[in-house]
């Protein structure tokens, strides 16, 4: 049903449609509206579940881990410092191969303190072993949340659904909230092969010796790589029900043969799509990366093939190295016959607005055939003391 909803409320409704039995909630801006909306659904008996208001994000992640291990579909959401506080549990959840879904309302990391959007938080835990799906708009957030449960439970891997804080979570949009019967047809009842069971007791989370640890890591890595197929199948199955894709692993907008390709994650993709429509004389192929983990190497290679320039935009960086996404895109260039020139920018950090006017500037930047390895796009050096420039 088409509704005008705030992103957070739409996500909460999508979560409720998945019928989680346990929700762990801890407030943090800009995620808080999601769990507030869920608590209202519980209070009004529209959602029957155990709503556990924990004392920290660390416990939020731990509660849903315990709950899933005990056989219940579970959910939590967080952002920024909360994701970092959870980090140890996030690795643990993934290593135990527990199917869970978490929404990350992407926000910058302190210090300097910022409550506004960038993607440093989810990027900081990119190696934890979770599937990470980034949403370009709130419709994708709704559809991806529902798909995330199917993917998580089919792969026995946790899924982090990343939505840009404020830009998506606090924006009102016309959103199609699917019918309960559509979700029920798409999402089977919760099943987890290794759930704790009094009738068939087993031990989980045990000590592993060096004789087995490498094999466990291999299995986990392989499971993530294999998840690409499940992510694609889930999107296709969902498209059959509601008539729209949530973005596959990667999707391309604009001229797929344009010399200039732009690759990015999250809500900036919406801005760039609009820019393409405005600046029609500046053609580009926009590579919308939805699935960052597993990193869809082959799909990205195909998408950037024959491009002369690839602009990699990201809302995070690896301080002292450069771009995170940029580095990963560079790492696959050796498989191409004519590797493109990479222009890697961090942009929109700590909530800095990304207007459509950046588009011609980005295209202009491609005139540089020897671009710097990486730079933060819109730094005003005049704001910095001499020694920091």
């Amino acid at each position, binding site marked *: 049903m088409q509704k005008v909803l705030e992103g957070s409320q739409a996500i909460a409704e999508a979560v409720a449609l998945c019928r989680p*039995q346990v929700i762990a909630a801890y407030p943090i801006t800009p995620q808080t509206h999601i769990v507030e909306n869920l608590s209202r659904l519980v209070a009004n008996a529209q959602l029957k579940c155990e709503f556990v208001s924990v004392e920290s994000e660390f416990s939020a992640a731990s509660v849903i881990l315990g709950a899933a291990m005990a056989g219940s579909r579970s959910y939590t959401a967080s952002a920024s410092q909360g994701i970092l506080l959870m980090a140890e549990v996030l690795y643990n959840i993934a290593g135990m191969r527990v199917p869970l879904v978490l929404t990350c309302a992407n926000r910058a990391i302190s210090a300097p303190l910022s409550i506004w959007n960038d993607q440093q938080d989810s990027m900081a835990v990119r190696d934890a072993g979770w599937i990470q799906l980034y949403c370009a708009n709130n419709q994708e957030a709704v559809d991806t949340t529902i798909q995330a449960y199917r993917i998580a439970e089919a792969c026995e891997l946790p899924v982090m659904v990343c939505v840009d804080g404020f830009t998506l979570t606090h924006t009102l949009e016309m959103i199609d909230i699917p019918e309960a019967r559509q979700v029920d047809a798409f999402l089977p009842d919760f099943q987890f092969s290794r759930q704790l069971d009094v009738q068939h007791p087993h031990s989980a989370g045990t000590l592993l010796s060096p004789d087995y640890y490498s094999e466990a890591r291999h299995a986990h890595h392989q499971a993530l790589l294999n998840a690409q197929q499940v992510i694609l199948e889930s999107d296709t199955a969902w498209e059959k029900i509601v008539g729209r894709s949530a973005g596959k692993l990667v999707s391309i907008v604009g001229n797929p043969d344009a010399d200039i390709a732009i690759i990015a994650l999250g809500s900036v993709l919406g801005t760039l799509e609009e820019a393409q429509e405005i600046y029609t004389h500046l053609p580009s192929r926009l590579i919308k990366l939805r699935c960052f983990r597993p990193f869809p190497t082959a799909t990205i290679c195909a998408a950037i093939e024959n491009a002369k320039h690839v602009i990699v935009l990201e809302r995070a960086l690896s301080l002292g190295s450069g771009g995170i996404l940029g580095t990963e895109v560079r790492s696959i260039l050796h498989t191409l016959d004519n590797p493109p020139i990479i222009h890697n920018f961090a942009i929109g950090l700590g909530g800095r607005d990304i207007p459509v006017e950046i588009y011609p500037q980005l295209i202009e930047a491609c005139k540089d055939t020897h671009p710097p390895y990486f730079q933060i796009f819109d730094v005003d050096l005049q704001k910095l003391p001499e020694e920091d420039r």
Partner: protein
Amino acid sequence: MTEVSIPIEQLRQQQPRYQGISPGHRACLGCGQALAARLVTEASGPDIMIANATGCLEIFTTPWPESAWKVPWMHSLFENTGAIASGIEAALKAQGKSSKVIAMGGDGGTFDIGFQALSGMLERDHNILYICYDNEAYMNTGVQRSGSTPHAAMTNTSPPGKARMGKRHLKKDIISIIASHHIPYAATASVAYPSDIRKKVRRAMHIEGPTFLQIHAPCPLGWGHDGSQSIAIARLAVETGLFPVIELERGALANVMPIRNIQPVTAYLKAQQRFRHLFKKADQRVKEELAHLQALADHNIEVYGLQSDHTDKLDTRGAALVHRRGKHWA
């Protein structure tokens, strides 16, 4: 020494049949924690799910692909056991299942790093029994001081020397902090009194809501005594008043295990290498520390009313020396 007049076969038959933890695990000889864990599962029965904090118990029972546990058991991390147990309990509630959730951790995982998650668990009124195996230091990492380490005890991070007499600070009064959550039932127990542990576990199993049991469990390696002396030393901790065995209901003191023959703290301290620096030479520092430790024991005896004037001699040492409201304690 005590003579046992009951034939051993008859004694064996009196042992509970069920044990949730199998022999063959890798605990040290005389491990108080292994004994306590076995006693807990004897009393709990098989209809439980265990969340176990990182620590010796987790390590020595589950070297993959083996496990000593005969009940559903999971380990996640060091400091989130209260929250893991909360999640399990919430899921069981949502599924309409009634298995009891038992959380287990050592003193490091309970007094220190896992305290926040435990406090949250108690505050949220989850139906969970939390067991703290208190061996008074980080034993799994090789004996480092914890918030539970007693004053003056030597550990590898509180060594005695020219400037120090072992741990400078007091043992954290965890049971009072737990009791301040006004949970239905909180108690302390000691591996020296096995049937008391079973009784307290059984009681907690029947309470709907959060319950807490702190079990004093000697660690021969960390305390520096022979494994054969674990029970004797645990008993001395109780008999000196250094480890009061008490029960609290909704935060109020409900019962104590009275001590008939109160022992001087030196009897307990001398038996352990971790206090040997207190007996090397009788200088002023040593005198002050011993007086301080005796004062701590005396304080416990006074505030909990541990001294018993019962003259009945129905039983022998151990459980026999303690009575509960005129009836046998154990």
